[in-house]
């Protein structure tokens, strides 16, 4: 079966040699990634539904940066992002609860009070501070913007590149799809002993589906026509990438749970989709494959959103050392119209969760072996072009 490729980078640009693994084990390489990439790009930190109402606030961790971000929603609906650091003696302004609805935030150390716009509005015993102006000591802010309900922050107050420009063609290709109609229905979290790139690699190709997922989803994904789960097309951007994953084995005998999902509206995950592409933007299932399942949209460096016709799920990979990564997963589905649809949707959450545990177990094993340095490089197939691309992009940023 043929698979189309629409790439800004051809295989020639990306090379065909085995990819060295030292960038996945070297502590010095990681420190450079942190300084030269993570501190200089837009990073996904949450979703609009995390703080839907005026006055809502939320403290989210950005582990790679070693900081917590305080997100607030103002009366007019706009979002703001601040470092959760009191400008007095650097205590955390908010400890717990990490979310809620409040107009002001009081630091638990000396009682300095900030409002949801980050302004310092009250300092106990203020007269004892000499030459002191409250207006100079507001919370330090980060830039914030949203795309398809995903909330991004940039560590710099005035980044050179807007979120729109950073997403670039991805924004053109993927916006207007199903994402805005979906709401979070499940979330998972793990701290995994693995380099962030090795971790993310596990979710950037479908070559592994027939082997690693032989017990779980291989039966529904892999067909006689496409025995190695070849992708349905890739699009490689300057920093980001998209890979179409095909599914929908016509010979698959659905399990009883899958029959219920089909009958009672549990969504299209794993089933493939024939037709009904009208509402998809051009960049999703770009080749308009009949057996399309979802697209893997990798937003450099550490955010991935897998988008199907009526579902999505996201991964945030937050490296905290060369060989340790904090991982957050969220599943998004359409609002269930009734309780049986809610039950049917539950199957995808359970199946994906179980399948992820198959995926993650390989990553820690690979990492241990990479640490030994015995093999030293990975030969990657054309099906793994997205992995090859990211190693190149990282290298470019570190130059």
């Amino acid at each position, binding site marked *: 079966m043929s698979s189309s490729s629409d790439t800004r980078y051809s295989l020639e640009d990306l090379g065909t040699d085995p990819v060295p693994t030292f960038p996945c084990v070297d502590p010095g390489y990681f420190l450079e990634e942190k300084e030269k990439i993570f501190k200089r790009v837009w990073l996904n930190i949450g979703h609009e539904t995390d703080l839907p109402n005026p006055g809502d606030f939320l403290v989210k961790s950005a582990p790679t940066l070693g900081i917590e971000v305080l997100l607030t929603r103002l009366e007019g609906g706009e979002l703001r992002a601040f470092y959760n650091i009191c400008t007095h003696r650097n205590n955390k302004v908010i400890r717990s609860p990490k979310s809620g609805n409040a107009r002001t935030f009081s630091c638990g150390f000396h009682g300095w009070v900030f409002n949801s716009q980050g302004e310092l509005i009250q300092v106990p015993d203020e007269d004892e501070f000499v030459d002191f102006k409250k207006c100079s000591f507001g919370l330090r802010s980060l830039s914030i913007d949203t795309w398809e309900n995903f909330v991004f922050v940039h560590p710099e107050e005035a980044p050179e590149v807007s979120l729109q420009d950073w997403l670039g063609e991805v924004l053109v290709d993927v916006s207007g799809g199903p994402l805005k109609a979906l709401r979070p229905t499940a979330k998972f979290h793990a701290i995994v002993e693995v380099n962030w790139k090795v971790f993310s690699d596990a979710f950037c190709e479908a070559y592994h589906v027939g082997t690693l997922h032989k017990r779980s989803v291989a039966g529904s994904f892999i067909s006689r026509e496409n025995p190695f789960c070849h992708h349905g097309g890739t699009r490689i951007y300057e920093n980001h990438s998209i890979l179409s994953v095909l599914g929908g084995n016509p010979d698959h005998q659905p399990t009883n*749970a899958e029959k219920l999902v089909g009958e009672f509206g549990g969504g299209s995950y794993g089933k493939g989709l024939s037709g009904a592409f009208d509402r998809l933007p051009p960049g999703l299932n770009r080749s308009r494959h009949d057996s399309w399942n979802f697209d893997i949209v990798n937003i450099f460096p550490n955010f991935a959103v897998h988008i199907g016709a009526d579902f999505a799920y996201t991964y945030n990979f937050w490296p905290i050392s060369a060989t340790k990564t904090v991982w957050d997963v969220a599943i998004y589905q359409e609002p269930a119209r*009734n309780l049986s649809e809610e039950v*049917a949707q539950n199957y995808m959450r359970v199946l994906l969760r179980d399948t992820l545990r198959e995926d993650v*177990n390989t990553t820690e094993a690979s990492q241990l072996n990479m640490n030994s340095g015995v093999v030293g490089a990975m030969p990657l197939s054309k099906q793994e072009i997205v992995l090859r691309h990211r190693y190149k992009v990282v290298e470019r940023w570190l130059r």
Partner: protein
Amino acid sequence: MTSRAVLPKEFSDLTDLVEEWALETPQALNSKRLNSTIEQLDSLYSRLDQRMVSIMCYLQKFSVSEETSDADDSLYRLARAFMEIAPAVELFRDPDIPDGFPSEKFKIVL
């Protein structure tokens, strides 16, 4: 729990499952699955499987946001239990994920 150990009368034959399996959260359901044997899951599966279409038709009457009676709520939770154990019974033939990342390190947050 006892006050909730009722089901709509057409499903009263499943009442004995309520206390153990009509659990409230995905964490509790997953933990119950992982701490069961495959024989226990097979037995639960065969009891629920033959009733799932009727259960789902019954639950179709309710919107997600409306208040439901304890009996209807228990039925809904039992249906979710079916979805929780279905991969274990139908696919893995094991309550846990063979060669899977350890469940104690994989946190279900929502």
